[in-house]
């Protein structure tokens, strides 16, 4: 049945190795690489290689977790890292596997495409001599001469959408070329998908920014907290939109008990957007599953949290700082941590380190914790440091942590660290005239992702093509049917053989052959009982 296939052959020739020159060796290697067995092996290897990335923290998805893992595993961590296990999907070995797979795919699919195009242009193959050796076979004796039977066979097969070839005393017919077309389209679409994904990564970018309520954002590189450009990305391509975050409403589960209590329910931001300088401003709503599109980029609501508004007076009594500071949530009850760096404080700079509890309570050990994510009873806990914040040496600094080198902790009675707990509106004086801290009120902030991927439409088109091709490849039956007519023993009678062959699993082949045989028996032998005809052997 191999000649129904345009699949690569898996014949013994692959194994035999006659004297091989360099060219022969290359051809041998190529044939191995493009064999079905190699494709199978590489597919399985790809599946196995993808596993570690789901178990170990990945730098790409969660850099903080990867860094923590390295800290916690000083022995094995660096080794795993060197092997690429903390960045599996960008590692050389993972790339090698899928690139080899796709080379194999192309090497396998191109010759098949050529063969298939040839098959599309040529007639069905000749009729085998011994039809009774085919997987499906019926034989019957009918009224009519050979020509009449063959004419009927042509009519029947054509109406069943077969392509025909007259072959002397037989008709050879084939249908279902779409199966192979679909299979080739599927495999080629996978190549297209890979190319689209790769170029999208090169051309696109992804930036993240935290915006407190009431503040604005103008799209430029310097405004992002983190920015990941593709290699071919050009900053002039950033669309010149800007917006203001007018409000952010957040609600949490209050009625259901158990583990559902306190789960987030609704996040919704109101934004005033100006798509390009000179455009009119628009009011738009931004929700978790409803990004805003602006000039080829999309803006996503990725996270939210609290930004306590803090005012700091320095040792001279001047307001050295006043504004919202972003505190990042550490748990489901939004216990949040953050820092305030007061570079303008005199005589010394001031650093504050704090924990914000939206709904404060004490746990059984007496430590303050947050018990609900909404701001029901907000409390801000603060520690203070004075000295040099180390921001002038040009080394980029995280806005979420203090570099304690060069700082002295402010201490209170008996040399213990000074710690204060403030409710909105309250002010605490720091010891020794170092200044004061006021917790004015609390705002929310929105964590926003801005993303552009110019090829995602192409990726979707290839994905859809692949699905269509796959369905055709799996469900369109590819069949050959032959009808041979030979003059029967009695005059005016003809022996008819009908045989069928399918590619792959084909549940309907038997029925097809059965029905063709029945159709040939019926009209010629007028009045013959179709249902019992054609079953003699």
């Amino acid at each position: 049945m191999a000649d129904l296939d345009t699949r690569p052959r898996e014949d013994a020739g692959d194994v035999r190795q006659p004297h091989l020159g360099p060219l022969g060796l290359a051809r041998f290697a190529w044939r191995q690489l493009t064999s079905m067995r190699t494709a199978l092996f590489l597919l399985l290897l790809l599946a196995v290689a993808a596993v570690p990335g789901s178990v170990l923290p990945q730098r790409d998805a969660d850099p903080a977790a990867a860094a923590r893992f390295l800290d916690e595993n000083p022995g094995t961590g660096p080794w795993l890292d060197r092997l690429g296990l903390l960045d599996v999907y960008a590692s050389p070995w993972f790339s090698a596997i899928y690139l080899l797979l796709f080379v194999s795919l192309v090497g396998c699919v191109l010759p098949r495409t050529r063969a298939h195009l040839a098959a599309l242009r040529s007639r069905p193959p000749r009729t085998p001599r011994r039809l009774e050796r085919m997987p499906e076979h019926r034989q019957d004796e009918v009224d009519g001469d050979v020509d009449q039977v063959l004419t009927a066979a042509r009519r029947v097969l054509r109406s069943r959408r077969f392509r025909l070839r007259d072959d002397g005393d037989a008709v050879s017919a084939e249908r279902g070329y779409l199966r192979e077309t679909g299979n080739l389209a599927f495999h080629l679409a996978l190549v297209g998908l890979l190319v689209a994904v790769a170029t999208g990564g090169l051309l696109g970018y992804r930036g993240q920014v935290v915006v407190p309520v009431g503040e604005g954002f103008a799209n430029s590189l310097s405004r992002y907290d983190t920015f990941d450009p593709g290699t071919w990305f050009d900053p002039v391509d950033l669309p010149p939109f800007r917006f203001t975050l007018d409000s952010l409403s957040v609600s949490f589960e209050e009625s259901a008990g158990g583990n559902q209590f306190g789960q987030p329910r609704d996040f919704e931001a109101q934004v005033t957007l100006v798509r390009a300088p000179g455009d009119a401003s628009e009011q738009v709503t931004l929700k978790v599953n409803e990004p805003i599109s602006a000039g080829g980029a999309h803006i996503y609501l990725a996270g939210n949290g609290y930004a306590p508004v803090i005012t700091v007076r320095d040792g001279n009594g001047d307001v050295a700082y006043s504004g919202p500071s972003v505190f990042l949530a550490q748990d489901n009850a939004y216990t949040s941590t953050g820092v305030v760096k007061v570079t303008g404080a005199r005589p010394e700079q001031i650093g504050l380190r704090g924990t914000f509890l939206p709904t404060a309570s004490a746990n059984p050990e007496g430590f303050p914790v947050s018990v609900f994510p909404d701001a029901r009873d907000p409390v801000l806990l603060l520690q203070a440091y004075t000295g040099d914040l180390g921001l002038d040496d040009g080394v980029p600094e995280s806005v979420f942590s203090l570099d304690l080198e060069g700082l002295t902790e402010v201490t209170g009675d008996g040399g213990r660290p000074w710690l204060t707990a403030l409710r909105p509106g309250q002010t605490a004086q720091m010891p020794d005239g170092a200044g004061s801290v006021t917790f004015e009120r609390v705002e929310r902030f929105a964590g926003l992702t801005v993303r552009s991927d110019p090829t995602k439409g192409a990726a979707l088109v290839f994905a859809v093509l692949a699905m269509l091709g796959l369905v055709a490849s799996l469900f369109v039956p590819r069949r050959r049917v032959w009808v041979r007519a030979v003059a029967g023993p009695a005059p005016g009678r003809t022996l008819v053989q009908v045989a069928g062959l399918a590619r792959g699993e084909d549940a309907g082949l038997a029925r097809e052959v059965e029905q063709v045989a029945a159709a040939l028996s019926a009209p010629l032998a007028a009045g013959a009982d179709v249902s019992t005809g054609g079953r003699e052997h």
Partner: protein
Amino acid sequence: MIDETLALYSDVLVYSAMAVYTLAFLAFTVDLSRQGRAVGGARASAADRESRLVPTAASPASAPAPSASTPPVLGESDSLITAGEGGDGLAGDGVGAGGGPRRAAGVAVSLTRLAVAVHAAAVLLRGLSAGRAPWGNMYEFAVTGAAVVGVVFVALLAVTSRRGLDLRYLGTFVVGPVLLTLGLAVSVLYTESARLVPALDSYWLVIHVSVAFVSSALFTIAFSASVLQLVQGRREAAVAAGRPPRRGAFMAALPPSRELDRAAYRLIAVSFPLWTFTLVAGAIWAEVAWGRYWGWDPKEVWTFIIWVVYAAYLHARSTRGWEGNRAAYLAIAGYACVLVNFGGVNVLVPGLHSYAGIG
């Protein structure tokens, strides 16, 4: 916003469904053991093995007798359906291997239908109680997923029996896992009915997850067929070697391993495009929700792994030396990945998809 009465009714219905499934499971098991004894008795000698391939008394009278002189098969072109037309030794239409009616199997199927109906009602009420699709946390995934397995199985039984084919032998191996899943759901995963977290609040949840359910249900049934295929294959080898196995008489009531292989393939061939759709729909949703269609999140990784392993299975079936048992091992490996994806990844691995709602 949550209708707690409906949620309570849903819980009660889940327990009721479990009770009926248990009865169905027992009935299927009784049927299997009876069939096994009958077939086993009818084929004491290894020579009788042929009778499994060529219909004898075991085959329903309605089927036309196939040719005993059929020449050797050239390719895999015969099929479940032709087999149903008389090519195998499967008992159909309520006729047992011993020639008597399979009363237990009939009872089992009726019970399964009832259990599935009750189960489906439980899922419906759960969804109504929260006013959304009933798959927002692990408990609901498990209960709804099991319901889909039940519905798909009942539908398969109906479709195949109309084509003169009997899949009831799979009953024990489908109802058993459904029952286990429900047990796990009510004992470990139980979560109160509630609204969704914002990330899940999208119509993509309905599209992506419902197709994933149907696909997983088909993989589940295919998995049962593959396991049986391996067991049956070993049994056939033993019989061929003249060592009729002493235990597991019920296996004699099941179709030959080639037939089970084909059944598994059919199911996976239908399920694979559905899983492909799940993957693509998930990517589209991720693009909408998180601003990237692919980010190698653990859930995405495992969805991809499952896809690749079943693609390998489909390849294996047309690679020389990999058909039959080796392909079955791949199908089983693929299903193991489905389980990891559902159980392990949701609970153990933190990621964007951690909506388990437990712990």
